[in-house]
């Protein structure tokens, strides 16, 4: 069982506690000065009351036990504690040397040196969602809650009920944001925390944006982060979106990313999971216009008792579009994984091309993967395929390498690295690709741990927090 048995709650008890929290603390939640937000929270609250929290009896959570997520001892901060701090003093990101607009969220709150919201020369707005609620109510009203499925999933409605802060990006029409925007989510707490960041990204017509989203934890303490991102791509917009995660084994991170694509837009979405206790990545793509392209890639490298759940859904509601899912994973030790990929081609969405591929390597007999590719097609002129493989390293390649004098261990690493590189090489920003390559290489040699980026250098042993998630 988890580190502190007494603290875990049944889903219904957790739900009750959340309902009570909202009813009692409603007035204290920031952002309520705005009627729009308040209305959205109330709607979400009504949905939350109707919806069930995730449990293993639900099809979508069959292979991931969410119960360890629900605890009675979480600290939930309604007031930001980190508004004006110099982030570089507590955390330096050595992952990327590329030039970015870098912003940081600490425990779900936007951290800034000068201003919580900056407007670039070209009109692009980058900053705190909390602040944006105040300054740009029109944009917020138009987009916030417009893509996320608030009425369908309890964790999405829960996030909407309590959302406070997160990343806000608005790229005006015809603007190509030169530098990538990098957002670093840091969890730093000595007590168990429950965080619900909310991100809203809007790419105007003919705009271009590269967004790198990194999740880190600074301590080995228990945390549950329930992130919801809404990303809107208008006509001809191009978004390169990366999510990189290297978190402690006591952290649970459920990230739900909702994308809406209008005509001729292009989305590259790459989800890289290197470390984490319990990780669930939900990618929900809704293609609303013709001639869209979406590359949905994922890589997961898990070991020990880590658990990864990737759930990808591509909804084609317009003709002549293309989506391609490629998820690859290597699972070592007792690690476990889930891939559920779904493609829905709605009536009238002719000439859809939708592909899905999930490939896995299991390095031990105890490592597990449950993979479920799924196609649902209501149009007759489409090209769709799905495939899943689970295997070991190619014995012929192993022998070939060993016959050249390469020892077994190195040969294995080279092959694993090669397996992963199919996903890594799809990264279009060279410095980012190089860095991810290095990270993957380090990870596969067993050299990358959460402590790599951790300035605390504590000597804590990695506890087996997530062991029972598999039970």
């Amino acid at each position, binding site marked *: 069982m988890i580190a502190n048995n007494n603290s875990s709650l049944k889903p219904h008890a957790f739900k009750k506690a959340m309902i009570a929290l909202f009813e009692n603390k409603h007035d204290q939640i920031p952002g309520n000065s705005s009627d729009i937000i308040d209305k959205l929270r109330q709607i979400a609250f009504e949905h939350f009351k109707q919806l069930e929290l995730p449990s293993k009896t639900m099809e979508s959570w069959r292979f991931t036990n969410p119960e360890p997520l629900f605890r009675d001892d979480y600290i939930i901060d309604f007031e930001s504690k980190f508004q004006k701090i110099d982030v570089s003093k507590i955390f330096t990101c050595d992952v990327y040397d590329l030039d970015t607009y870098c912003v940081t969220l600490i425990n779900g709150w936007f951290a800034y040196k000068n201003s919580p919201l900056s407007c670039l020369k070209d009109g692009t707005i980058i900053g705190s969602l909390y602040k944006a609620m105040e300054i740009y109510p029109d944009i917020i009203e138009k987009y916030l809650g417009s893509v996320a499925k608030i009425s369908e999933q309890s964790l999405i409605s829960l996030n909407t009920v309590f959302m406070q802060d997160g990343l806000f990006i608005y790229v005006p029409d015809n603007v190509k944001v030169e530098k990538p925007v990098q957002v670093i989510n840091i969890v730093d707490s000595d007590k168990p925390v429950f965080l619900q960041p909310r991100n809203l990204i809007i790419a105007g017509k003919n705009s271009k944006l590269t967004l790198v989203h990194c999740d880190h934890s600074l301590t080995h303490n228990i945390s549950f982060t329930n992130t919801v991102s809404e990303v809107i791509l208008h006509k001809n917009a191009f978004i390169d979106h990366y999510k990189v995660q290297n978190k402690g084994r006591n952290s649970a991170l459920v990230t739900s990313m909702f994308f809406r694509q209008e005509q001729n837009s292009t989305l590259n979405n790459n989800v890289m999971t290197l470390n984490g206790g319990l990780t669930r990545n939900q990618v929900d793509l809704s293609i609303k216009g013709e001639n869209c392209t979406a590359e949905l890639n994922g890589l997961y490298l898990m070991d020990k008792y880590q658990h990864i759940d990737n759930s990808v859904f591509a909804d084609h509601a317009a003709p002549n579009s293309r989506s391609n899912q490629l998820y690859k994973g290597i699972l070592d030790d007792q690690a476990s994984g889930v891939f559920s990929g779904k493609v829905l081609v709605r009536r009238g969405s002719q000439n859809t091309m939708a592909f899905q591929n999930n490939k896995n390597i299991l390095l031990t007999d105890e490592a597990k993967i449950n993979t479920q590719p799924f196609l649902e097609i209501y149009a007759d002129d489409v090209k769709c395929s799905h495939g899943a493989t689970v295997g070991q390293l190619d014995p012929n390649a192993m022998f*070939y390498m060993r*016959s050249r004098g390469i020892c077994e261990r190195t040969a294995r690493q080279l*092959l694993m690295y090669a397996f992963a590189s199919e996903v890594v090489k799809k990264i279009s920003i060279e410095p980012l690709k190089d860095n991810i390559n290095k990270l993957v290489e380090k990870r596969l040699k067993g050299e990358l741990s959460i402590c790599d980026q951790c300035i605390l250098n504590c000597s804590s042993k990695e506890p087996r927090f997530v062991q029972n998630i598999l039970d």
Partner: protein
Amino acid sequence: MLSIKNLKVSIEDKLILKGLNLEVKEGEIHAIMGPNGTGKSTLAWVIAGRNDFTVEQGEVTYMGKNLLDIPPEARSKEGIFLGFQYPVEIPGVSMTNFMRTAINEKRKHLDLKPLSGAEFLKLMEEKKKLVKIQSKLTDRSVNEGFSGGEKKKNEIFQMALLEPKLAILDETDSGLDIDALKVVANGVNMLRRKDNATIIITHYQRLLDYIIPDFVHVLFDGMIVKSGGKELAFELEEKGYEWIKNKSE
């Protein structure tokens, strides 16, 4: 250098090698010929160290050591090289990374400093020239997208880099056009030294127009049924394997 005595090997309970004897000394080139399915590749794999078969009986000694106890990577470091009949494609592993890793593991074994990236690239260019290979190898994955000829030439190139004491070339000539065949033959001849040896496994006499073997052996039904000088290859070419089959029945 290599001594094989009464070697019996089976794969999934089927006896493939049925008491094979072979002696290879430094400076020699041996050609092993024979029809398909007689155990030629199995012999190559036993020497290189594949483990998906069972040695039922016999011994294989190399430089005085029992070869069968040694893992394949150690055999390579001791100077054994197998040129594969079907070189394996390894998508995602670059040729440079692959061979530099191999060279540096060998150098480590010999207590030499590892080669830097630049030093290795220089060595690669030298060896490419030596064996007259024009293919671009850097930035490409191991054998991925290589034509049949390129794959075989790549085996010779790897051999040039690793400078083996004992090279076994398993059907390296099969499927090659005459130009590629010359490149392969030239490589073997260029790399020939007084203190190394080569075993050429081939189906046809064609390659032996360019590489002159000291000995020719005919492998049939898991045993070497006939040995001789280079004339034996011509005789085989002329009379065909039926001649051997009939003789041995």
